[in-house]
Structures are given as structure tokens and as C-alpha cells.
């Protein structure tokens, strides 16, 4: 990353932190967007708390998606699991094509309001990128490398942990990053079923016709997405370099 790129991100991070911890400092910026003396800054809850709750939901869902998707990806690339590949592909794709709102509608009667239905929706929505990338990562490992590993007497488990997974790791991580970033935005719908999160700010804005609220909610989510995306990408690059998988520029 160039110096300038780093500076821009650093500034964004500082602004974001300042805004969620002391939003009232920014009141003058948002005042022009309000009418009828409505509050310029979201005042129905603590932004810092909502941000934390939002991140908590997204990362818990990502953790669950990662565990399931990677496990599934490993299973269907083993000789004994190949026959389940088409089936698991369809299932995971359905998870992605089924709108998260519809998942909420189905889940609420089953598990009640709150965080649970949101977690389920995000979990399903986030499976596909991780699963597909796990498949790509594992199948792109050079057959030559695997042949050498087998020829030197590495058993299947060792080959998985010492060769296949490390070599697939960068691609799997990219899938997780994608999943997290998509779900940072998607998680806002959780607020329709009373999950704590930044969606609350946007919905409050919609209900009271307060553009300032909508903008605040949207901006915080967008900044989080951009910064987390870049953060994860930096981490991936570092890892690739540590694993010796190519020049840092990769």
C-alpha cells in the first residue's frame, strides 16, 4: 500500500472511532439534513454499543460459516466424499440465493425475535463464498506436490494439514473476507427483528423520516466494511509472505 493509501485509511479509522465514541461532536455536520428541529445525531441508543453488537453478530456468524464451509469443503474433496460434492454445492447455493429477509421471516416463528434469527440468516448467506473458495483452494494444489507428498509417505491426514490446507489458506481467507464484508451490510436487516446492531439507526431514520440518521447508520457500516476489508487483506498478504507462497506483491 502506498503512503497515501495508508494515510487515507488511518484518517477514516480515526474519524470512525471519533464518531462512534462522541457522535455529538459531529452534530453541526448533520444539522443541515434535518427538518422541524429533529435531532441531528442518533439519540435512541449508544452508537459504540450498537457498533460492537453489530460486529459481534457478523463475526459470530462468520465463525460459524467458516467452520461449516471449510469442514464441508474438506469432506467433499476427500475421495470418500466426492459423491456429496454436487449436493453440498446446491445446498450452499440455496443458502446464498434465498434472501436473508425471507430467512428472517421463516426463522422468527421458530426461534423468536432477537439475535438468533439474524445469526441464522447471516450464517446461511455467508456460507457460499467460503465454501466455494475452500473448494478452489483445495483443488488448485498442484497434483505434483500432492504426488510427491504421498510418494514420501505422508498419510492422508498429514497431507491435508501440512500440504493442502496451508496451500489453500490464502484462497480460503479471501472467501472469509468476502463473506464478512457482505454480511456487515446484510446484518443491518437484523434490526427488523430486534437484534442489536447498526440497522437500528437506519430504521429509526426511516421511521421518523430523518435523513441524518439514515446517513449516519449507512456511513458507519460502510466505513467498517472498507476498513475491515483492507485489514483482512493486509493480514492475508502477511500470511502469504510468511508461508513463502510468493512475493509480497501477490
Amino acid at each position, binding site marked *: 500500500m502506498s503512503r497515501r493509501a495508508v494515510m487515507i485509511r488511518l484518517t477514516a479509522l480515526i474519524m470512525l472511532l471519533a464518531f462512534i465514541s462522541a457522535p455529538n461532536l459531529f452534530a453541526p455536520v448533520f444539522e443541515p439534513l434535518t427538518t422541524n428541529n429533529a435531532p441531528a445525531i442518533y439519540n435512541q441508543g449508544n452508537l459504540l454499543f450498537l457498533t460492537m453488537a453489530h460486529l459481534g453478530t457478523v463475526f459470530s456468524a462468520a465463525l460459524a460459516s467458516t467452520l461449516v464451509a471449510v469442514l464441508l469443503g474438506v469432506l467433499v474433496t476427500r475421495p470418500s466424499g466426492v459423491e456429496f460434492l454436487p449436493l453440498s454445492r446446491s445446498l450452499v447455493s440455496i443458502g446464498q440465493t434465498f434472501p436473508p429477509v425471507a430467512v428472517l421471516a421463516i426463522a422468527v416463528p421458530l426461534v423468536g425475535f432477537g439475535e438468533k434469527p439474524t445469526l441464522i440468516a447471516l450464517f446461511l448467506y455467508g456460507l457460499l463464498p467460503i465454501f466455494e473458495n475452500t473448494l478452489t483452494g483445495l483443488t488448485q494444489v498442484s497434483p505434483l506436490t500432492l504426488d510427491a507428498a504421498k510418494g*514420501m509417505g505422508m498419510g492422508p491426514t498429514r497431507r491435508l494439514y501440512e500440504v493442502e490446507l496451508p*496451500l489453500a489458506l490464502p484462497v480460503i481467507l479471501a472467501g472469509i473476507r468476502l463473506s464478512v464484508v457482505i454480511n456487515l451490510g446484510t446484518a443491518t436487516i437484523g434490526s427488523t427483528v430486534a437484534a442489536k446492531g447498526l440497522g437500528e439507526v437506519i430504521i429509526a431514520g426511516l421511521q421518523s423520516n430523518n435523513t441524518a440518521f439514515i446517513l449516519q447508520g449507512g456511513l458507519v457500516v460502510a466505513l467498517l466494511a472498507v476498513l475491515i476489508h483492507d485489514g483482512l487483506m493486509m493480514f492475508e498478504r502477511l500470511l502469504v509472505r510468511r508461508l513463502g507462497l510468493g512475493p509480497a506483491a501477490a
Partner: protein
Amino acid sequence: MIEIERLTKRYGDTTVVDDVSFGVEEGTITVVVGTSGAGKSTLLRMINRLVEPTSGRVLIDGQDTRSIPEDDLRHRIGYVIQGYGLFPHRTVAQNIATVPRLLGWDRKRIADRIEELLDLYQLDPAEFATKFPHELSGGQQQRVGVARALAARPELLLMDEPFGALDPVIRAKAQDDLLAIQRRLRATIVLVTHDMEEAFHLGDRIAVMDQARLIQYGPPAELLTRPAEAFVERLVGTADRPFRLLSLAKVEDALEPGLAEGEPVAASGTLYEALSRLMWCGRQDLPVADGTGSVIGRVSITGILAYGRSA
């Protein structure tokens, strides 16, 4: 001693290795040559059971390989493939350490072995141990591939076109290095190639395969003087047969009594080299010296030509 007994491999109706038997003496290099698709790689891979034979068996020092657990067997047999298959996420040292680590050697012993092998291959440990494969040249990767296969002192080294990806100059050097190391370690090697030059250069014995069958097995000179089939004759090339023979024969094979002028040639050198020297310095004959440097006779152009004709 490796004994290959009636090895056969069928995929469906096609037989890719058909009833092949031969023995490999300890400390020798056996080269398997043949055209593409002849079944060479399949034969090699049946030795370490990467391919399960349809029938037949392989004995290592009299022990049937089927009685040894697959992974244990492969720890005892080094394996080098074309393209080497180095682990891209592991350093040179870690790559070489693979089998010793699987065998549970302690750190010190592994570190010593890595250093020993890198030295053997003239790769400075300080510089190369921590490099990753993508930071190495093709020739260096090849050497690391062989070093890795040799790491746990295997009883047998299998090499499948180990020099196939190298340019001619590096290739010749790699072949000479392999010969030097093989003589030093007294390693037993089975090497697959489709390059006849390579087979003659490296092989103590050559196995010629065609269409799944082993059609001749013997020392290089025998392939030249008594080719089993027209196919072998075509493969070794009839036109330059005398030259190949000269490059297999030692100067002492055409030693004549008497004295000659000039710089002596070594008795252990090949007749090919001697002829080349004679032509270059424009003489009819040159003295021959043994290992200690004392002259034991002479070698002449007429003598060498007579030897070549006798083939």
C-alpha cells in the same frame, strides 16, 4: 537387491505394464527407457506402491513390499519426479527434512543431515536453507528434489525423468553430479527417462520398454552389440553405434604394449575421449597412464578403430 517379479498393471482392458521382471543390484543405477506411454512411470510407481499392481510382486532384500505398510515402505524409498513437487510453502531445509521428520528424527540429527546434503550438492546452507522453492533456479530445485529424496538414506531411489525440465548444459552437469553422488553413497537407483543418451551415460543396466513390455534388459554395451529387437536397434541408433560403444569402453580395453610420445591419457578414461585427444593433437598414438601416473602402455588410432569395428 530389488527384485521385480512378473509385474502387471491393467486399467480396464488395457494393459499398461505387461509381465515385467528384472533385478536391480545394490549400488547400481538401472535406467528404464522407452517411448512415451510405454508404461515406465507406472512400473516405477508400482515399486513404491503409488500404483497397486494388478499382479506380480516387488521384493526388497527378499521382503515382499506388500507386507510393509505403504507409508513405511515409502519412507524407505526415495522418490523424485519431473517437476520435483517441492512444497512451495516450505523452505529448502524444511523440504529436505520431510521424511526424517516423518520418521521422528531429533532436531539436531535433521539439521546435521540438511547441512550435509546441501554441502554435497554445493548449495551453501547459510544461503539456501531458508529460501523458498520459488526463489530457486530450475537446476537448484532439481538438486533440492534429489536431496529431499536422499534425506533419510533410502535403500532405493526412484527417479522419474528427474532431468527432463533442465536445459542441456545444466542437465549434463546434473547427470554428472548424480553419478558422483551415487558412487559416493553407493545408492541403488532406478531412473526413468526417454532420452537414450541419458540412459547410456547413467545406466549400469538399461531396461528397454515398449508398449507395456520389457523387451531388453542388460548392460549398455549389450544393447549395442546384441539388440533384442528391431525396436531396440532403432532406439539406440545404428549409425552412431560404434561411437556409443567407444564411449562405454575404457582405454585399458584397447591397451597396446609399447611406448609413445606425448601427454599420457588415463587408463580409466573412455576410448571416446582417447580418440578425441588423438584427433585433436594429430598423433597416431599416445601413452597410457594408470591411476598412479605411471605409464602402462599406449593407445593408438588403429587400435581404437579396430575395437570399434569388433562391436
